[in-house]
């Protein structure tokens, strides 16, 4: 039995008829043809398939494609600017060597984007707990945590500068 769905994937509307049992990750990989999102387990434990659904991270193996109908999905392929400028999380992952084999990376990056959206300047322990659902076998997480903290520190500095500017404006009034 087919289900008709319309999903915005990385800014482009996609319209397909899918089997009702199709998982979002299968839809992205096999129907839309975006292979960046990986499958690493069958118990929703590893997080390799993490994507953004309406801006929030989800494990796309625990969402039916039908549930994404009328919503927007962002995968690793849609994260950089259209001109190729890397998202700050992508840049930080490269700068800090936060990836090796790359298999967990798309999911890990999307989880980090979501984590930083909720908590722009997390502590190390907040990062570690926040990424508990994303497994990596290569890096020992050391450089992943470092990369996230680096992006967080930049965000914190920007926020601090904004707050500081606000305070100065307040004082000058």
């Amino acid at each position, binding site marked *: 039995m087919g289900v008709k769905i319309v999903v915005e994937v990385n800014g482009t509307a996609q319209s397909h008829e899918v089997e009702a049992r199709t998982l979002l990750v299968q839809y992205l990989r096999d129907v839309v043809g975006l*292979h960046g999102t990986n499958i690493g387990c*069958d118990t929703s*434990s*590893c997080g390799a398939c993490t994507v953004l659904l309406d801006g929030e991270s989800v494990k796309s193996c625990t969402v039916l494609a039908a549930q994404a109908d009328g919503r927007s999905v962002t995968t690793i392929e849609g994260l950089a600017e259209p001109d190729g400028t890397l998202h700050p999380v992508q840049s930080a992952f490269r700068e800090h060597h936060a990836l090796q*084999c790359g298999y967990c*990376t798309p999911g890990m990056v999307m989880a980090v984007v979501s984590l930083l959206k909720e908590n722009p300047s997390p502590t190390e322990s907040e990062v570690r707990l926040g990424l508990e659902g994303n497994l990596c076998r290569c890096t020992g997480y050391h450089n992943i945590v470092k990369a996230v903290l680096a992006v967080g520190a930049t965000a914190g500095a920007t926020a601090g500068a904004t707050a500081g500017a606000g305070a100065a404006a307040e004082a000058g009034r």
Partner: protein
Amino acid sequence: MSILGNRVLRVEDPKLLTAGGTYVDDVELPGAVELCYVRSPHAHAGVVSIDTEAARRAPGVLDVLTAADLALAPIVQHLPGIPAEMARPFLAGDRVRFVGEAVAVVLAETRAEAADGAALVEVEYDPLPAVVALEHAASGETLLFPAAGSNVAARIAPAPAPSSAPGAAAPGAEGSIFDDCEVVVSERFVNQRLAPCPLEVRAAAAVLGEDGRLTHWSTSQTPFAVRQALAGALGVEEGKIRVIAPDVGGGFGAKNGDYPDELLVGVLAHRLGRPVRWCETRSESMLALGHGRAQQQTITLGGSRDGRLRAYRLEVVQDCGAYPLLASFLPHLTRAMASGTYDIERVEFESVSLVTTTAPVVAYRGAGRPEAAAAIERAVDRFAAEIGMDPAELRRRNLVGPQRFPFENPTGTVYDCGDYAAALERLLEASDYDSIRAEQAARRSCGETVELGIGLAVYVEITGAADLGGEWSAVEMLPDGTAVVRTGTSAHGQGHATAWSMLVSDALGIPIDAVRFVQSDTDLVARGVGTFGSRSLQTGGVAARQAAERVVELARELAGELLEADPADLVVDPGGGGIGVVGTPTARRSWAELAAAAAERGTPLRAEVDFTPPGGTFPFGAHLAVVEVDTETGGVRLVRLVAVDDAGRILNPLLADGQVHGGLAQGVAQALLEEFVYDAEGNPLTTTLADYLFVTAAELPSFESLRMETPTPRNPLGAKGIGESGTIGSTVAVQNAVVDALAGRGVRHLDMPLSPERVWQSLAATG
């Protein structure tokens, strides 16, 4: 200024970060038949019958094959001494020997239809007794291979070790190697079974071309070995087969082998003339990808009360699982470094490798060496506790001195170079050892329930073992001014594209992004062994560097002719300008010009090199773990992990650090969390990532990683391997820390993983 030794960002990353890698299951193969295996739910059983009728009638199912249909000879292992009767079949015939062994394969139009069809295959089993405990396997009461006559797959006899000490007691009837020891400690350790868990599971895809050549994509660390195995199974020349390992999502040793379920993809594509593909699920992978470790060890360590170690015996029982693959050989590596970094006069080793009704055991990060390090380092701590000496001091008194190299240890292994004492002292200083000991004492004196534990390991390990051969590489300068480097090694996350590009770019003076890196394709690479055992840089990297240097020599000869100059006056322009006369910027030929001129003459600027090192290299280091143990709950928290590692000269510290971090995490994982568990009936209990305690970010601290660089004389780069050393030191350092935390409460040894329950039970037992 040479780029070598600098922190260079990876050339692999942009694609991996923006589009993701191209892994085997990403390879487009329209019209491919999908495979799904029917796997045994029994640990040990006779296969009475297989009814495939219902499955054959299921929608989309094309065929169902059993061992009888395949008519393939078992897979021959290229390891010495394994009984021929224990060879592994492609599909189980009249007997299954572990839960997860494939008994039939369903071919269908889609993956879902193949899985649905597999569920309809009816297999009638006649259960046999499971053999899980090694004692049971050794007894021979139940044989996995009756024709072999025993469950023994391999053995290392207790040959008397060469002794340099005249008059030392000979082992055997006259006395034991421990006769002159004032203190002798003995203990039995379990180095538990682990699941390697690369994030990418195994997959394969294959297609027979119109030219009759088979292309087979494999998640392998050793594509040439896959080609050899496929050629054997198909009975065709290796040249008729192309094996490609595209991006591979980690391996850790476990993707280094001839897996029947993977090879069958190529075999069936060849027979059917239709593309075939397969990808296991994680739950299947936990059962059917090889496991690691699985050693039982009995140690005896003797010495004097003032802390001089004199004699050591290590007896190993290696669990091979159902079929003897690499595990049967692992005790050789354990033996080779049994005495570790210590100068112990007399060492005895014996081992037996047994088959059991569990998943086959293969290499896993360290492969036999973490087991050796765990045994000796735990034994040294046990001895230190016995004589009441600080474990750092006991180590200090017994390390092989820096002036002793090359050093032949009592099991006959010749260590190339090292300074173990320097690594230990650096570690103690960096970690502020005395202060942690003081804090530990303070906590104890005021009876705190959360104890502090400090664990040490001073390790040496073996990388690039010479008997595994060398590696091939070719470098070619193209008329567009870029270079291509081809290598026989097969990276799967290590960053070889970056490392090899650095080596070539530095030799030719061209930018790193002007180098194209080619690996893991048996049509594009002449020959290769693969990436495992921390061997790649010291074999394939050296070959690439030497090939690039030969290209420079060819180019200098050519430029000499073109410029009418003496080649001896010609040098490579490090700014990418090609080759020119020293001090005369105008007298120069660019690489593009040189390559074009060479091509015109029909002698491309191309060189290839096979480099085989004269012997293995011996990375070493010292690791220290600090743990907090809650004596009320048994909970362990790793507070610090400090690591000093020396892998010779470092090419790119960014890559080296990454290797160490990953290794450290896997060591902590074994010490505290991970174990693949079978019950007494051989049922696996940890078959998903929800049950198997795969280490996460939340259980780890940031690591404190320090480097020493003692270049090895055994290759021109001075490089030793660094892929596994993190695991080799850290595992037992963490284990030692937990035992140390509880030493005041009467605990002398605890096996891994140090789960809260195990720790709590030990405290309950000691009162």
